[in-house]
């Protein structure tokens, strides 16, 4: 599509390349972004019916059973951004969440799965900016990165300088990853340069912290919008593209996710950069955890099943995973009261 993009990008990538903090566990060279190139997404066809068909059969074509299912669920935990984004969040609530992030699975499950001695933690903890500081403190020494939402989450309708200031605040507080929201209006109006400039400015404000661009796909509605917004966010330097805030009417769905991972595949083909994907919102079950991993494996391959390129943004999914693993280990169905809550 943009045959000439690769060599130039590689050169640019070398000049901008820098390693992220060890704590995030990221080993990827970061996406450096590129100039806005609308021809990479304008007119790109996305057929909704076909996307829905593919999404519907992904999980009927593949099945993960027994030990494999257990391992896949453990992997989902490793890729999970354990999240609390509620109006009644407190420092104490965040500490509880962080404790769960450090040991997401009960000791007898770790033992039963033969994982003793291995550090099994969630991929990150995700909180509001004012709660970054308690999270960082609670996670000290764990290697678990703290992600903060920012930029006027969830609607993002705040002056840009305030949104950028919020990013800098969260980074100063110690956030390793910033989950920004894009201005939906820019997408709906196809004002790609405004969108590009906004995300690029946010990326700059993030500094060493990774930028996860929330597209709020439930607000964008059409899959063509989703593809275009994904591409602009990546061109502007997003390290991850993320479906939803969890606050839209429709949050992560498989068809939307399919379109986003195809966009990041296309971006990667054109530039050589590997961008991560984070579905978020509405995913509550272990079954969902398997479905999204199947999507990643089928469309992108094994590399996209690791936390540096894949995160599941979820708050209640972990409890269901733990219950399923309990069943795998003990052969009995579990009661959630027997597992530590987040």
């Amino acid at each position, binding site marked *: *599509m943009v045959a000439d993009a690769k060599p130039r990008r590689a050169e640019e990538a070398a000049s901008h390349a820098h390693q992220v903090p060890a704590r995030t566990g990221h080993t990827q060279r970061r996406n450096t972004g590129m100039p806005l190139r609308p021809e990479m997404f304008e*007119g790109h*066809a*996305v*057929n*909704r*019916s*076909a*996307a*829905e*068909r*593919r999404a519907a*059969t992904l999980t*009927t*074509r*593949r*099945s*993960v*059973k*027994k*030990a*494999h299912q*257990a*391992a*896949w669920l*453990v*992997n989902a935990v490793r890729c999970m951004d354990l999240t609390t984004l509620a109006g009644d969040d407190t420092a104490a609530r965040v500490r509880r969440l962080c404790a769960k992030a450090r040991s997401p699975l009960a000791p007898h499950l770790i033992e039963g*799965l*033969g*994982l003793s001695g*291995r550090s099994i933690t969630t991929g990150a903890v995700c909180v509001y900016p004012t709660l970054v500081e308690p999270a960082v403190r609670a996670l000290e020494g764990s290697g678990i990165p703290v992600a903060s939402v920012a930029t006027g989450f969830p609607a993002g309708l705040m002056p840009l300088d305030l949104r950028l200031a919020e990013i800098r605040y969260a980074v100063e507080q110690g956030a390793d990853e910033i989950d920004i929201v894009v201005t939906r209006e820019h997408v709906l109006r196809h004002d790609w340069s405004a969108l590009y400039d906004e995300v690029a400015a946010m990326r700059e404000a993030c500094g060493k912290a990774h930028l996860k661009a929330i597209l709020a796909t439930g607000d964008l509605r*059409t*899959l*063509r919008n989703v593809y275009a917004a994904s591409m602009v966010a990546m061109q502007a330097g997003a390290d991850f593209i993320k479906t939803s805030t969890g606050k839209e009417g429709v949050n992560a769905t498989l068809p939307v996710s399919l379109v986003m991972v*195809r966009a990041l595949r296309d971006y990667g083909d054109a530039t050589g950069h590997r961008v991560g994907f984070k579905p978020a919102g509405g995913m509550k079950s272990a079954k969902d955890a398997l479905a999204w*991993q199947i999507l990643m*494996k*089928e469309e992108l391959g*094994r590399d996209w*099943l690791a936390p540096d390129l894949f995160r599941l943004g979820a708050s209640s999914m972990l409890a269901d995973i733990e219950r399923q693993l309990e069943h795998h280990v003990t052969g009995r169905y579990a009661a959630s009261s027997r597992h530590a809550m987040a």
Partner: protein
Amino acid sequence: MNEITNILETLDYGPAPENTDLVRAWLERHDGRFGHFIDGAFRPSGGTFDVFEPATGRHLASVTQGTSADVDDAVRAARAAQPGWAALSGHDRARHLYALARHVQKHARFLSVLESLDNGKPIRESRDIDIPLVARHFYHHAGWAELLEDEFPSARPVGVCGQIIPWNFPLLMLAWKVAPALAAGNTVVLKPAEYTPLTALAFAELAADCGLPAGVLNIVTGDGSTGAAIVGHGDIDKIAFTGSTEVGRIIRRQTAGTGKFLTLELGGKSPFIVFADADLDAAVEGVVDAIWFNQGQVCCAGARILVAEAVAERFETRLKARMKTLRIGDPLDKCTDVGAIVHPVQLDRIRKLVSQGAREGAVLHQTDAPEGCFFPPTLAVGVEPASTLAREEIFGPVATLTEFRTPEDAVALANNTKYGLAASVWSENVNLCLDIAAQVKAGVVWVNCTNIFDAGAGFGGYRESGYGREGGREGMMAYLSHPEPKASGTEPEVPAPQAAPGGGAAGAGIDRTAKLYIGGKQVRPDSGYAYAVAGGGHAGLGNRKDIRNAVEAAAKASAWGAATGHNRAQILYYLAENLSARAAEFEARLRAAGSGVEAARGEVEMSVRRCFWYAAQADKFDGAVHQTKSAHVTLAMNEPVGVVGIACPTSVPLLGFVSTVLPAIAMGNCVIAVPSQLHPLSATDLYQVIETSDVPAGVVNIVTGMRDELAKTLAQHDGVDGIWYFGSAAGRKMVEAESTGNLKQTWTEEDAARNWMSAEGQGRRFLHRATQVKNIWVPYGE
């Protein structure tokens, strides 16, 4: 490292086997041996053949080879049961069909596992596609049974139906055949394919369980010879066959002249057309669903990928990348995309064709496949229209890739095949999609999707992919008969034409010479001979070259089929106007041919009325929008058959011509008419009327001469899409037998059977004969 930590490294899927214990226990309960299911009970097994599990080669069961005595028994049981079954109220039959649907649903997993064991198809497909469609088909047809009298007034069941089904969708094809047959009040003798008879036998058991009356459904197992015994049976009223075009031809020949109803669902080599503005990822996934579905053993498989040059390279790259994630292997594993080929014989056929394709220069891209009866998903590039791989139906997981330049080019390539079953069109431009859908010669067109099925839509082909539809209203019509006029038993004498001088035939006034009418021009017969017509005058003695020229002219006039109904109506009204203006002349001609004054006036008057009736129908014989899946529009469009040859009735030379030619042209067909051999001059007089009525050149062609000789040439002509013949018993048999070359649609009737002056002489039945239904699937949603 332990198991979990190992898996955490690879994140492989691991095995996900479907349990087969219950099915194997069922086979054991039958001692692995099955007899026929006749008159409501299983017969003891007789001389048997073995049925294998293709994935492993393991023996599954021994099944009885049906003899002609077995077929006799089954037909006798079906015949005995038929009146009682037909006498049930539609509601009572609906209850039985509903029970069958419920039973299929209740035993869905059992049937899925049995199907995958027997056929080798992935459990995902039998579980998610085949068996749910089976249940859907019985539900849908429970509805038709309930509504039969309301929706098809005056229709009657055909009687006893002999049904022969293939091995690729064993139970689904049974459902497609059995459900409409039973709904319409027919009884059935069905032969499942010899490779895959087990789900049919399990279904028979279900039918007995849910109280289907004895004899209504009979299953006779066996090979092709059993099928031949069914086809050749004298007491079967209809044959429905799904399978190869080769066998379809044999069946057509075998049933010629027997009066048996016949529907054929045959092979295909369906195009899969990807335009530059398509969602390429969607189209790649479409290829997976098109040709790597059921190991490509699908009659409507999109086997010929035609892709716009502008995106060909990108498309090919993506398709190859997608091939790498296909999983080939154990059909009973839930992660399998492509299972086993049904039988080593079929595997051998696929291998031979593919290696021949490779020798012809095709470059093959293949994935890995396990040892045994498996064939790897294959993409053949560098395939030209002349390649074997582009022309022959492979019935395996082999797609060809050919590039096109323009939409016209795509249509030309798509239609460059003897088949016409299905097509798939990929573009985000609705104008383009519907334009291509209209131009592709196929019974089913999928827009931005492929291999989508529903009981509510008709399925069936154009050209050598067969005739008749399965599913929907059009499918029910294939199992209903209408009161047709009975043969009188006395054929009108048609003496051999006298083409030498001495025949008399001097008329009053200036000597007029009737010529042939081909391509809008009056032409002399190629033979150079004329024959004397009783009552005065001469007519040209047309021969095979005249037919050839007429077919050529008709094919060139195909734009007529795309004219609006209104436009065609205007021309037919004009025809009526001009005919009426010259009524006296036509009456005189009829009187010269022996008609009385009143009869002649009546025939002309009726001919004018018939013009009006078909003019009225020209813009009213609508298609339908079927209720199928959510967010899909399924358009059932009535399209003309194409080039139609008509051997007109003898007795009413003007009205017979008008009554047969008009319905054909009203629906957009182009016609080669052979007028009454005895009295052709009424028809040849008409060419002046046709000329003055703005009928475009080539739409109606008239070749006078020896009816049966000309009909034979028409029946044999591969450029003729349909033939209607009103003539002798021997002629009917000849026409049906000779039609097998391109499997053209035939309609034959005893010459004197119909009273053309009565209501029998016109009607919607004529329009159904003049059309074929194309189902176009258009999913929507943004």
